[in-house]
């Protein structure tokens, strides 16, 4: 009986059907999902960003995976260029960490391309200077290493929130579990990059520079332009329960205990800063 149920989930028809009925459910249930989606205020909208995401709005699961693939393209290219730049101190922890993450992000690209098949999208053209705001791959830029670390942190923390924001769209499909498996890898990356950056800045015990996010604090040395990545993370209400009131723990501790989702729209806006076309 279970095997039939399992096979049934693999037909694209049931995938579409389920996705839409989940959507209806989400609409009815209200507060929770909406609260999750409301959060971040966009900090800048690249005019070309909407073109870069060829989302098929008729199917939430496919749209979710296309968004995921675009974010993975961004990360994969970023780490490859970072490793090629000569900016990272060679032979140390940073290089090992970037290599490991690079391997995963490139694997995610291939995995999602394969999973999407005919619905796959091409990589946008990226500009990691964000129109001249950063110069992360230039070894002659004294700030390049700091910018490589800051951008990596912003990309990883965004990735965690963006995958989480798409989970509902993948419910009832065979893509949910692999997406969760990528999501937690992004979270491991985020934790390590945050801690590496803290180490470089000599901020290892700074509450705002640990592996987890405190309130909506972007952390020491993070450019203000990255604030949208953290807006909404200060939430302390889960399932309608204010956990500061319920547990007596501080808002800092409660906010650290839960990562908040990010809507596809906000994720696109953030990625859009680095997309040329």
């Amino acid at each position: 009986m279970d095997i039939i149920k399992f096979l049934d989930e693999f037909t694209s028809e049931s995938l579409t059907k389920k996705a839409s009925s989940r959507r209806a459910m989400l609409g009815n249930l209200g507060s929770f999902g909406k609260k999750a989606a409301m959060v971040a205020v966009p900090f800048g909208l690249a005019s070309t960003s909407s073109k870069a995401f060829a989302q098929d709005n008729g199917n939430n699961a496919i749209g979710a995976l296309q968004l995921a693939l675009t974010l993975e393209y961004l990360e994969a290219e970023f780490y490859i260029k970072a490793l090629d730049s000569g900016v990272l101190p060679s032979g140390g922890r940073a290089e090992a960490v970037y290599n490991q993450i690079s391997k995963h992000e490139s694997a995610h690209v291939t995995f999602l391309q394969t999973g999407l098949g005919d619905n796959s999208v091409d990589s946008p053209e990226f500009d990691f200077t964000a129109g001249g705001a950063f110069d992360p791959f230039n070894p002659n830029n004294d700030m390049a290493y700091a910018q490589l670390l800051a951008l990596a942190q912003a990309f990883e923390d965004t990735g965690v929130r963006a995958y989480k924001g798409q989970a509902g769209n993948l419910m009832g499909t065979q893509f949910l579990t692999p997406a969760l498996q990528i999501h937690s890898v992004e979270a491991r990356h985020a934790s390590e990059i945050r801690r590496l950056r803290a180490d470089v800045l000599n901020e290892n015990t700074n509450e705002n520079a640990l592996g987890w996010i405190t309130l909506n604090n972007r952390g020491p040395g993070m450019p203000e332009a990255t604030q949208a990545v953290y807006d909404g993370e200060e939430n302390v209400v889960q399932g309608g329960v204010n956990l500061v009131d319920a547990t007596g723990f501080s808002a800092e501790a409660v906010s650290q205990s839960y990562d908040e989702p990010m809507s596809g729209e906000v994720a696109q806006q953030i990625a859009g800063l680095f997309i040329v076309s």
Partner: protein
Amino acid sequence: MEKPRIKVDAVSAKPLKNSKSRRKFLKMGGLAVAGSGLLLYGCSSDDDMNNPEPMPGEVFDLGSGDVGILNYAYALEQLEAAFYTKVLDGSYWAGANAEEKKILEDLYDHEVIHREFFKAAIGANAEASQVLPELEFDFSSVNFADRNSVLATARVLEDTGVAAYNGAGRLLQTPDFLVIAGKIVSVEARHAAAIRSIYLEDDTAFAGDDIIDSNGLDLAKDPQTILSEVGNTGFVVTEFTANNLPQ
């Protein structure tokens, strides 16, 4: 919501009425007797024993549907919270460097907050009798004065938490619960990476090749596998069953 089809007697609490049915469980679902107390049965079969509601004093069953999965998560969070409570009472933590001290203190906070959340959330979505009771744990195999013993255990618990939530996501029916599980699992993954990073020598251990596969995917394990692994640690003293979890 799926109707629970089996009710199972608590094997060790009282003799089974019918030894034939026990064999049936073994055959069909893969009975996993885990560690000192935790009993896990296969949960989906067409067996139709119509046992009455559990009597007081019987072994608790995690239940079915989303409540069952929430109880399952609650059990794991109870375990983690109890562990870090002991860590913060131990001499390794008292003498640890500032960074390790801070990390472990945060992990304690987070796991206790998760535990209390599940207690409240299940209470709000089910009868009081369906909420997993407070479990008893035995950490006598961990040396809380020893860094390696503490961090090795923390690593196992955090990686297990990640794999458990990743595997349970598809079993949830309510979108709100899936989002909540997602909010928690990424924090568990952040923990796992930090513990691995401070404990293991390898600079890539935070997301090491021992757990992340060639597709760049983290572990995902079903409740039976997780409960059997947790049982094997011997940490869980209180018996409970997982006979009706969705599969």
